């Protein structure tokens, strides 16, 4: 059995421990190790993606215990795709954190970053529902630390909200898992698929509750409308590299929905009727509308980007809730796109916030930004991508989604909301962009700020200390390289849209015929249980026990 599948989980875990225990005082060593580890994960992720790209599903049994009893990791097309996406995002974000000095503004950035990676990658790879909960908690507890990295009053308050909201989400997740276990007696996803299908339709109240609870849990992660309140503040106040990394966190929710509802609760079951077309689709469209209204109404550029994340999640989930192979493929394409676009925007916003002095992220008039041309150009490109204008991948993703929505009964609603939403987003982003980059050059008392009457006084009061910062501080280039890398990813996603889309269609097709997955998980033999009293020891040591248990 190949151990490659577990390396994306074990490597960051060990690296984080080394970082926090051995080199906690040496930022340079931390940076080198952290970057090396992240690049190694990228290499492994590419390898795993390559391995799965011909449709093979690889199984890893922790401790060699066979499936319904032990925990399994499964690398199929979807998992390896999401792992690859994370592994491409992480080095660029890390590069930005190093280049901008964010990692030095508080303690333990790099260990927390590695733990966060471990949690995200583990959540994508696991084939066990309870293990999914555990990896959610790993990624959450790391994200709590990252969220309040570098401290500050507003950040701590936003962090408190974020933690409390997610604590409630975790509790809900446990209630859902308890209900599922009480109804089926298993938590292995492949095993669940068989048992849920066999449940008596007359006595399905419990499993229906569980299916809806689980959807709610993932909807919290994905920030769907009534459950989105945690997102704007958390993303706006989180340190920029962290917010950029969080771009993948909302996708964890979307991944959970796609995985669980193709495998465990497929929509042709009677118990899941109406869950997506009646509930999730309108919620997703409302989320999209709310996100775009938020973009238009935001008075701070970081909140503007945060609302655009909500909007993009709404669009993504409306594609998911069509729930055809085309819809899932479109959703995956858009997920890749919006991860890079969001990350690029958050990093750009940080640069803008940094260079505008006292005006910071507020959308008011301020002095022109030094070195603004490059920044403005990048913001322009990223905003085009985010709002889905041609020629970048956002447009292609939106086109795929509109095309896939044809098979939904709500197709006209989808078209109306998506297209109106795009228009609103274009207006919102161009307002922000022209206010920050363009109108800064037209200084004069006769220009009224667009949004806020009290702003001129604020500006006059606070612009002085800001302008004494000295405009000639040499700017590090690494942050711009990182942002450029993210934009290059978007361009690559546009140029290679054909091959990417074929891969994603194959991914969706694999998701909609889960039989090989289930068969592989359930029929692969594990270790022989001998008749001595110690052989029956439980395997809840998790990954750590895996290598030790290998040779029994």
């Amino acid at each position, binding site marked *: 059995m190949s151990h490659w599948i577990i390396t994306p989980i074990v490597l960051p875990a060990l690296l984080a421990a080394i970082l926090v225990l051995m080199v906690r005082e040496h930022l340079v060593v931390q940076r080198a190790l952290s970057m090396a580890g992240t690049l190694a994960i990228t290499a492994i992720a590419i390898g795993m993606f390559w391995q799965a790209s011909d449709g093979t599903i690889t199984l890893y049994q922790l401790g060699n215990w066979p499936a319904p009893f032990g925990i399994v990791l499964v690398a199929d097309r979807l998992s390896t795709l999401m792992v690859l996406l994370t592994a491409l995002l992480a080095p660029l974000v890390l590069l930005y954190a190093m280049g901008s000095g964010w990692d030095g503004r508080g303690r333990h950035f790099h260990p927390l970053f590695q733990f966060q990676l471990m949690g995200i990658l583990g959540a994508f790879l696991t084939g066990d529902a309870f293990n999914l909960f555990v990896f959610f908690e790993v990624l959450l507890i790391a994200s709590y630390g990252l969220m309040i990295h570098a401290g500050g009053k507003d950040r701590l308050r936003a962090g408190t909200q974020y933690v409390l909201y997610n604590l409630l989400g975790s509790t809900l997740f446990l209630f859902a898992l308890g209900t599922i276990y009480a109804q089926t007696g298993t938590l292995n996803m492949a095993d669940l698929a068989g048992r849920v299908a066999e449940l008596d339709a007359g006595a399905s109240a419990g499993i229906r509750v569980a299916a809806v609870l689980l959807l709610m849990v993932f909807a919290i992660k994905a920030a769907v409308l009534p459950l989105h309140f945690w997102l704007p503040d958390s993303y706006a106040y989180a340190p920029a590299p962290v917010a950029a990394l969080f771009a993948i966190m909302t996708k964890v929710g979307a991944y959970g929905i796609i995985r669980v509802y193709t495998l465990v609760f497929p929509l042709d079951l009677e118990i899941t009727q109406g869950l997506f077309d009646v509930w999730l689709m309108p919620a997703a469209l409302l989320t999209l509308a709310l996100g775009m209204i938020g973009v238009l109404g935001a008075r701070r550029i970081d909140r503007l980007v945060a609302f655009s994340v909500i909007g993009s999640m709404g669009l993504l989930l409306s594609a998911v809730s069509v729930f055809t192979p085309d819809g899932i493929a479109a959703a995956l394409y858009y997920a890749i796109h919006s991860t890079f676009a969001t990350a690029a925007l958050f990093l750009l916003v940080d640069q803008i916030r940094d260079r505008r002095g*006292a005006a910071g992220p507020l959308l008011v008039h301020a002095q022109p930004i030094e070195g603004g041309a490059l920044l403005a150009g990048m913001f322009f490109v990223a905003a085009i991508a985010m709002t889905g204008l041609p020629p970048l991948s956002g447009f292609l993703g939106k086109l795929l989604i509109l095309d896939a929505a044809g098979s939904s009964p709500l197709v006209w609603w989808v078209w109306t909301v998506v297209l109106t939403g795009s228009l609103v987003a274009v207006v919102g982003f161009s307002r922000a962009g022209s206010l920050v980059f363009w109108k800064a050059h037209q200084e004069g008392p006769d220009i009224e700020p667009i949004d806020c009457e009290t702003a001129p006084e604020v500006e006059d009061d606070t612009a002085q200390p800001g302008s004494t910062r000295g405009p000639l501080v040499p700017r590090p280039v690494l942050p711009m390289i990182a942002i450029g890398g993210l934009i290059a990813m978007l361009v690559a996603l546009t140029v290679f849209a054909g091959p990417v889309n074929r891969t994603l269609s194959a991914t969706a097709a694999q998701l909609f015929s889960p039989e090989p997955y289930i068969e592989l998980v359930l029929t692969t033999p594990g270790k022989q249980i001998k008749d001595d009293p110690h052989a029956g020891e439980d395997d809840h040591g998790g990954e750590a026990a895996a290598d030790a248990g290998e040779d029994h």
Partner: protein
Amino acid sequence: MELLIASAVGVLTAAGIYLVLRLRTFPVIIGTSLLSYAVNVFLFASGRLAMDAPPVLRDGAERYTDPLPQALVLTAIVISFGMTAVVVMIALGSWLSSDDDRVERPALTEDDTNAPSVTEGGAR
């Protein structure tokens, strides 16, 4: 027994939700703790209630209780304990830095832009 467990879960959940809705960090944290107790008891019950039975299956055992929920509860307890510790620290930090223990954001941060404390320079 079933009635006792069910009402315990219900009362704990109700009390937890009530406290969470108080929007002050201390009651909210107590509320999330109560909710995590409720879910732990609930997880226990998800393997069916069997009293005085061993949690392992061995030769000659007439009846046994499901060991898996116990392992799940153990994991859940450890996680919720750690999470509670983290949230206490973060809430404490938030309270110490802003002299205020409200969970929700005060309305001034974005609308009231002429308040001097709002400039984001210090928070970066």
